[in-house]
């Protein structure tokens, strides 16, 4: 009996090691998936100290940031691969964001949330370490009086007179609250992740499209509550159309 078991163990060890030996050079089953994220104003990359025009009104941007989260990759068989706990705080001046490793294969597309799910939205922001995009930022992008994040925050100046040559009055769009998160759907945009090469998806969000149906002369401020809420709803409803893939 003892002999038999020893032989068995030896055989298993031999088989296991020989299997490894027989294998060819290991293929990666996972590769990094990156996004090259472009925050645009029309056909140009958003930039500071630049005058743009929306519906005839001149404006500039001093900052534009937005949260994207809950990435879901749609596999070839239609099943969904959720990328847990990955949140980007997109800054108009930065382009590189990484989802880390995802399984190699063909995908039908992907989707994500502009904003945060309601659980993440109401978590205590003081608990994150400073590198985490959900930590308290400078300038702030979290409402401390009602405990929730600003999903989409754009500030700058607009031309309030329609006669001056440059923007002269502050505008601010602070769009948030659970109700105003939106799914951005690219589920019919196939891509492949192949072994040995990291994949980069180029994506664009156009600010002009996000404020397409706004009259900056009258709709130039919102913090998503009360009388200023309708402007925030308009902006949130424009988000899907403001996105495109390169």
């Amino acid at each position, binding site marked *: 009996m003892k002999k038999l078991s020893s032989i068995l163990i030896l055989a298993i060890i031999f088989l296991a090691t020989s299997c490894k030996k027989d294998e060819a050079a290991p293929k990666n089953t996972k590769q990094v998936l990156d996004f090259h994220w472009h925050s645009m104003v029309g056909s140009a990359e958003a930039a500071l100290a630049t005058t743009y025009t929306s519906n005839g009104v001149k404006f500039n941007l001093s900052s534009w940031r937005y949260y994207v989260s809950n990435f879901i990759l749609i596999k070839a068989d239609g099943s969904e691969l959720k990328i847990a706990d990955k949140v980007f705080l997109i800054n108009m001046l930065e382009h590189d964001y990484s989802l880390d490793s995802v399984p190699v294969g063909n995908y039908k597309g992907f989707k994500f949330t502009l904003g945060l799910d309601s659980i993440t939205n109401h978590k*205590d*922001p*003081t*608990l994150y370490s*400073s590198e985490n995009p959900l*930590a*308290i*930022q*400078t*300038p*702030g992008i*979290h409402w*401390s*009086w*009602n*405990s929730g994040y600003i999903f989409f925050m754009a500030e700058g100046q607009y031309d309030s007179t329609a006669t001056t040559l440059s923007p002269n009055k502050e505008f601010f769009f602070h769009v948030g*609250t659970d109700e105003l998160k939106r799914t951005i759907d690219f589920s019919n945009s196939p891509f492949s992740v192949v072994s040995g090469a990291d994949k980069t998806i180029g994506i664009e969000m156009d600010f002009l499209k996000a404020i397409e149906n706004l009259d900056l002369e009258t709709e130039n401020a919102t913090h998503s*509550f*009360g009388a200023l*809420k309708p402007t925030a709803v308009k902006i949130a409803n424009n988000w899907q159309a403001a996105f495109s893939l390169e």
Partner: protein
Amino acid sequence: MKKIYYFSITFLLLIISCKKENLPIDEYELSIPKGFPKPTIPDNNKPSADRIELGRRLFFDPILSRDSSISCASCHHIDKKFTDGLPISRGIENRLGIRNAPSLLNVAYQPSMFWDGGVPNLEQQILAPIESHFEMDFNLPDVVTRLNNIEEYKTLSQKAYNQLPSIFSVTRAIACFERTLFSGTSKYDDYIYNNNKSALTASEINGMNIFLGEDGECFHCHGTYLFTDNSFKNNGIYLNYNDSGRARITQLTSDVGKFKVPSLRNVAMTAPYMHDGSFATLEEVVEHYNSGGKAHPNKSGLLLPLNLTTQEKTDLVNFLKALTDEK
């Protein structure tokens, strides 16, 4: 001989206080008033002497405001029972805020913060006055940078939370200190919890009976040892509210004009009253409730004309004054 006696007492006190300093975190005993339950405290912020000390220093330090001009204590004065005596609080550069500063006494028992309950706990509450443009007009990351330039704060934060000053340690420490602010040593407490029947005068007792009975109906909202049920109520002070109150958070029309029911402990020392400080005296407040309030659609059904006599109103005010802490 007397000298030696005092010396031994001091020595003993020192030993006792030293012992308290060295107590492990889960054994630190808060000085909870007689008759009060233990407050619920987050697991990551159990009290310790170092944590409370760090919080106490931060609470009184104007370093938290952008121009280093105001501290937490500027709107929460100790000598005004942690209020500021103003109808609406003032921030840096004398900027006018939006609401009346509430007392911090017994804040450990509050299930939500602010007049509108917009924030669930003290740790997160601390962000709001620091960031508000009408208050400190600053931000936590910059506060943390300032604190990391001060050796004393670096040492204390390490001792208290095992890390250099951080958003975590700053918000936790101030909350930890605020949870030591109790109120429960009034003549009323002596009457109830020490069973000292001579603690209250006849007028105060009569006022208490109006308060706790169907003549005043006050106890429905201002009940329990806290003198509040921490609910949100519209008490009919306006027909149209400039400040939507609880609706600012919930966005519900049914919450317009609702504000958190405040505690009445030390109420004689926390004038003026209401979320906007619109009533200057307790007599005005009692007169308001006696009238039944204005007919706002959200007004609490508990507010009805009371038809109290002049003497009854005086008794009620006298009872409210007996809720002032003696220590």
